[in-house]
């Protein structure tokens, strides 16, 4: 008797449940699929289903899953209505899971979808979303390497005219005419830093000219090691020009390590010696202002060059010529004819050209309503 009553009760509850569900237009979530999440390490399965019609009273979805042979268990919190995907990242690798999506209404009535086919999480070896990135990387690398070998094989690589560099002769000529000296500062960089190395190449060229014209060249340094290397560079230049007698080691000297004291020291030399031309090439920090200002106040021709972006505005405003960022590297590649630098320079130009083409093409295509390029460049994670 008891058993019958219980059965009846259960039946009744079920009827009420189902009928309320249907009376509210509750249909089970359709087209439910479960599959391995693409492009991950295999630690998740993605479940997708179709959104319920707008007018239905569904307030959320609950995901249930079953490990082969086990029972259904709820996973995660209730998902808001309108959700159509869920990534289950609490799976164990290698096990197969089947999923059920349960729609829940505001009155807490529920209806389940059909159970999906079991799915496994597998890790992918290659992220397919990153193919454009991979191709771009390979292309660019190949471009750089090819150009470096091209330059190494002795073929000529053209570097455009750099106005600041062309002014070097003019500046040295003027100093010679006026019978004044030339001052060259390599900034605060250490010997291994790229702008310092670039600056040394330029200094080598300047020294050749001063050797020819017999113009005194002063190089106050901030780093003892830089001082030694610079002495070597300048001496070689004087030797190459056949003027070892004109080389004066005392003109290339270590001033001080401290940033502002260095600036004050160089400014002092400027006001005492009144050089006709001043070169500020290399890595500069906040002291750039003091140097450029003093040089300006004594009326010298000033040629600056740095890749320190923050100092460029001040150099441009107070010097006669300024090598801007990459121009400094280009200048040193041009002067040194070092294949690695020249090759990279041209390889990077190829990269720029490619960006150039992508941009113009992208703009034209977007205007025509085609978004291939933007899709290609899209962010993937």
């Amino acid at each position, binding site marked *: 008797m008891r058993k019958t009553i219980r059965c009846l009760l259960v039946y009744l509850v079920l009827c009420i449940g189902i009928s309320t569900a249907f009376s509210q237009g509750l249909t089970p979530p359709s087209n439910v699929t479960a599959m391995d999440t693409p492009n991950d390490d295999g630690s998740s399965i993605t479940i997708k289903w179709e959104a319920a019609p707008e007018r239905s009273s569904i307030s959320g979805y609950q995901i249930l899953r079953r490990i082969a042979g086990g029972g259904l268990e709820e996973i995660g919190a209730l998902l808001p209505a309108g959700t159509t995907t869920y990534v289950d990242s609490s799976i164990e690798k290698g096990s197969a899971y089947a999923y059920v999506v349960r729609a829940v209404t505001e009155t807490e009535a529920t209806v389940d979808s059909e159970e999906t086919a079991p799915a496994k999480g597998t890790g992918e070896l290659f992220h397919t979303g990153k193919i454009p990135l991979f191709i771009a990387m390979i292309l660019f690398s190949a471009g750089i390497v090819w150009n470096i070998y091209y330059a190494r094989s002795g073929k000529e690589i053209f570097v455009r005219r750099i106005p600041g560099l062309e002014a070097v002769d003019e500046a040295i000529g003027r100093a010679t005419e006026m019978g004044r000296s030339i001052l060259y500062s390599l900034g605060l960089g250490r010997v291994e830093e790229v702008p310092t190395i670039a600056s040394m190449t330029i200094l080598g060229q300047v020294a050749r000219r001063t050797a020819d014209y017999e113009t005194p060249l002063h190089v106050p340094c901030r780093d003892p090691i830089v001082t030694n290397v610079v002495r070597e560079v300048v001496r070689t230049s004087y030797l190459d020009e056949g003027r070892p007698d004109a080389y004066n080691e005392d003109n290339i000297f270590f001033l001080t390590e401290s940033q502002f004291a260095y600036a004050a020291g160089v400014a002092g030399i400027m006001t005492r010696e009144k050089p006709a031309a001043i070169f500020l090439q290399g890595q500069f920090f906040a002291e750039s202002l003091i140097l450029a200002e003093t040089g300006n106040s004594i009326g010298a021709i000033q040629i600056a060059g740095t890749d320190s*972006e*923050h100092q460029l505005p001040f150099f441009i405003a107070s010097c006669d010529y300024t090598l801007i960022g990459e121009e400094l590297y280009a200048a040193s590649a041009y002067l040194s004819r070092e294949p690695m630098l020249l090759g990279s320079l041209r390889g990077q130009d190829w990269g720029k050209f490619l960006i150039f083409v992508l941009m113009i093409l992208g703009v034209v295509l977007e205007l025509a309503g085609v978004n291939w390029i933007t899709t290609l460049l899209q*962010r993937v*994670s």
Partner: protein
Amino acid sequence: MDRRFVYILVALAVIIPMLFRVNLPVSVSEPTQKLYDYIEALPSDSTIILAFDYGPSSLAELNPMAKSLLRQCFDNDVRVIALTLYPDGTTLASTLIQEIAEEKGAVDGEDYVFLGFRPGATQVILGMGSDISSVFETDYSGKATTEIPMMKDITNYAQISLLIDLASGSSTEVWITYANVQYNLQIAAGVTGVIISQMYPYLQTGQLVGLISGILGAAEYERLIDVPAKGMLWINIESFVHLLIVGLVVAGNIIFFNQRRREE
């Protein structure tokens, strides 16, 4: 004219307005507003990271921002994980956070945590992408990170709603390059005057969700959260110094062009 004369003018342009307070209205720029709105829209109990990537040399511009941001977060029940990639900023950050936490009654370990400093910026950022506690095993005071109440549900960037980088150098670019694209972490920045201009390309692409620009941005933010402090005070004094500098540039150029005309 001796340059020391100019120095005295600058000193006076700072000291005089400081003794007599001036108060001019500040209008709020779009990038600042965006960051403010973003934080306002965060549900309570979400967590953000505040990176103090600066040393004492930039405290004038960045401390006021840090204070306003902490005030806003604590008021909105947004939890804050603070850390630094600059060793010089560690004690500075730790004292500043304690000051604002005391003011707002925020509790260490529940409303905020200061993780301290770890060397190797790129590695730290990437390491936190998989597991924050693998990089910061303990917080600054030595408590195990995994045992801190607010860190219980936080493993990596996936649980972080926003990272705000207070930067005096290139750290924002590093965060963008390694945490934004790779881990999809939303990033905003508060920066010193020197680097404001170079942040704009990232704002347009959405790689930065907002930007506080130097002392001006700090003043704007103080206006947004309606707690006027140093930022508001100092931007007004800035007015006088900027007027002086603009005047000096114009005067210098007039003299220069007059001279050149006479020489010709």
